[in-house]
């Protein structure tokens, strides 16, 4: 069995309470960082660890932190992306509900490293119970002197605020998240400028995913070299793979980056449910282009997935069986993106809506002979033509489904 890092203690009763967490060497990483290390040393260690963003884009966290100006008269902010809206993804929910203090430790160390005194956790609105758990953990940490003024006598101050979203997938996109946190509609911003220089309230801002930050305490305690060995040289550590769909044991599985996708489905998750046959897999959340059953002998890391024309994304593996018509999958994807397009960019607003209507027509048995070509043309016209990645997130899986399962889909059209 591979060693678990993030999920190691998840089985412990009441791990979310600070007394239990402290018994598991909790907050030792914060003590080490604040009392024995300098901010520059923390940045170096995280850079060396090659910790790539766990939200989906896979950008190296240490490099991202390095973009924030050291000297500035503006306040700097940390925004924790806990929006977790990518269909198929539920790993951050596990981290926050089982081990909220691990996330807080990551937040404290990241903030100390970058010189931040105010952090916001932007959590999706539906996770109300988890937001309350986080608030409880923040109060506990404050009472023990791990948050607030002069943390552990280091002179470093930090406040953390939990901010609930209200049902908008696009707010998981980092600049939409900032807009939403400022009390606006979640409309993504044009980049550049990047949030590291102009972010929340026009100030330098770091935005990191929950799982990314939860890795930080281990990097600080055990070192970058140890972390890299747990994964791949260019892609350190483990990933929490969330497996759902037609498998025997859906759930989260923490495995080294680079673990084979077949192994994740057929060993970790117990294989197909009810002896069904595998048809296709969405390997990294709904935004990831689909893989056919014969394409799953793949190392699950950012570069291998990109090489296979898909993406690791949020490492959410959705398993589809042979009995499910691929049209059902296309319908779910088309419906989702047409609902979640924020409406700011015309190709995405109009394109996703038309695709959804055409797919709906096909599903109603009224598919016309050119419908598949129309969907492909519309998706091609969304791709690369929008401010934020939601456009590509819609277009790429739709294109992959239409192209890889062309024959099956054509069977639904009138001849």
């Amino acid at each position, binding site marked *: 069995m591979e060693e678990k890092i993030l999920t190691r203690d998840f089985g412990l009763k009441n791990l979310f309470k600070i007394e239990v967490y402290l018994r598991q060497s909790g907050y030792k990483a914060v003590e080490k960082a604040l009392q024995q290390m300098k901010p520059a040393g923390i940045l170096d260690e995280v850079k060396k660890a090659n910790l790539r963003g766990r939200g989906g884009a896979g950008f190296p966290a240490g490099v991202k932190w390095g973009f924030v100006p050291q000297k500035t008269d503006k*306040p700097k902010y940390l925004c924790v992306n806990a929006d*977790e*809206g*990518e*269909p*198929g*993804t*539920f790993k*951050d*929910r596990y981290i926050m509900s089982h081990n909220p203090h691990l996330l807080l430790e990551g937040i404290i160390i990241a903030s100390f490293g970058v010189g931040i005194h*105010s952090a916001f956790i932007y959590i*999706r*609105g*539906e*996770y*109300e*119970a988890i937001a309350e758990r986080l608030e409880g953990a923040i109060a506990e940490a404050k009472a023990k002197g791990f948050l607030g003024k002069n943390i552990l006598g280091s002179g470093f101050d930090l406040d953390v*605020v939990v*901010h*609930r*979203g*209200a*049902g*908008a*997938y696009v707010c998981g996109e980092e600049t939409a998240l900032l807009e*939403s*946190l*400022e*009390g*606006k*509609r*979640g409309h993504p911003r044009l980049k550049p400028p990047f949030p590291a220089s102009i972010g929340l*309230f026009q100030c330098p801002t770091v935005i990191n995913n929950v799982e990314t930050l939860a890795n930080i305490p281990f990097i600080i305690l055990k070192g970058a070299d140890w972390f890299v060995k747990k994964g791949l040289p260019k892609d350190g550590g483990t990933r929490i793979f*969330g*497996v*759902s*769909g*037609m498998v025997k044991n*859906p*759930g*989260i599985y923490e495995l080294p980056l680079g673990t084979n996708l077949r192994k994740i489905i057929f060993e970790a998750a117990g294989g197909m449910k009810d002896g069904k046959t595998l048809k296709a897999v*969405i390997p990294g959340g*709904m935004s990831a282009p689909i893989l056919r059953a014969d394409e799953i002998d793949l190392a699950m890391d950012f570069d291998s997935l990109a090489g296979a024309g898909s993406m690791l994304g949020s490492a*959410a593996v*959705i*398993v*589809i*069986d042979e009995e*499910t018509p691929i049209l*059902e*999958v296309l319908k*779910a*994807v088309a*419906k*989702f993106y047409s*609902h*979640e397009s*924020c409406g700011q960019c015309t190709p995405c607003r109009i394109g996703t809506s038309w695709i959804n209507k055409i797919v709906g027509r096909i599903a109603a048995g009224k598919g016309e002979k050119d419908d598949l070509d129309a969907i492909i043309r519309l998706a091609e016209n969304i791709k690369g033509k929008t401010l934020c990645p939601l456009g590509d997130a819609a277009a790429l899986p739709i294109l992959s489904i239409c192209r890889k399962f062309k024959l099956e889909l054509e069977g639904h059209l009138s001849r």
Partner: protein
Amino acid sequence: MSPEYSESLRQRIAEVVARYPRKEAALLPVLHLVQREVGSISLEEEKFIAGILDIKPMKVREVATFYTMILRQALGKYHIQVCSNLSCTLLGVGSIIDYLKEKLGIGIGETTLDRKFSLSTLECLGACEQAPCLMVNFDYHGNLDKEKIDRILASLT
């Protein structure tokens, strides 16, 4: 006449607003708080919130209408929201939705006459390992089958 908002709500709002460097950043949390007390955000609530945050009522509406969780009209006592995304679809949420419609005697987007239940579908709840799943107000229920639906509905009084 504008509705009376409770002192505890006003106090809670003041606490929340104080956490942000700019008042208007508290808009979403304040919308949540007001909706929890009143049930929805209508014209009166827009004015009330705008007054507290020093913004125009239209700004409140602009934001409120963007987010699916902010309601323009109050729903039934129990809002049942069923996930209709992919993992839930694969595991048969379609028949769960049909069963709920039949048991409650309403369609998607409707509320029972006694205003006890409202039924909606929504996009991924982030609980795909428990698919098919739904939310009653903010309580999650997963691994649904007809029997479990019966038990959930029976527990809602």
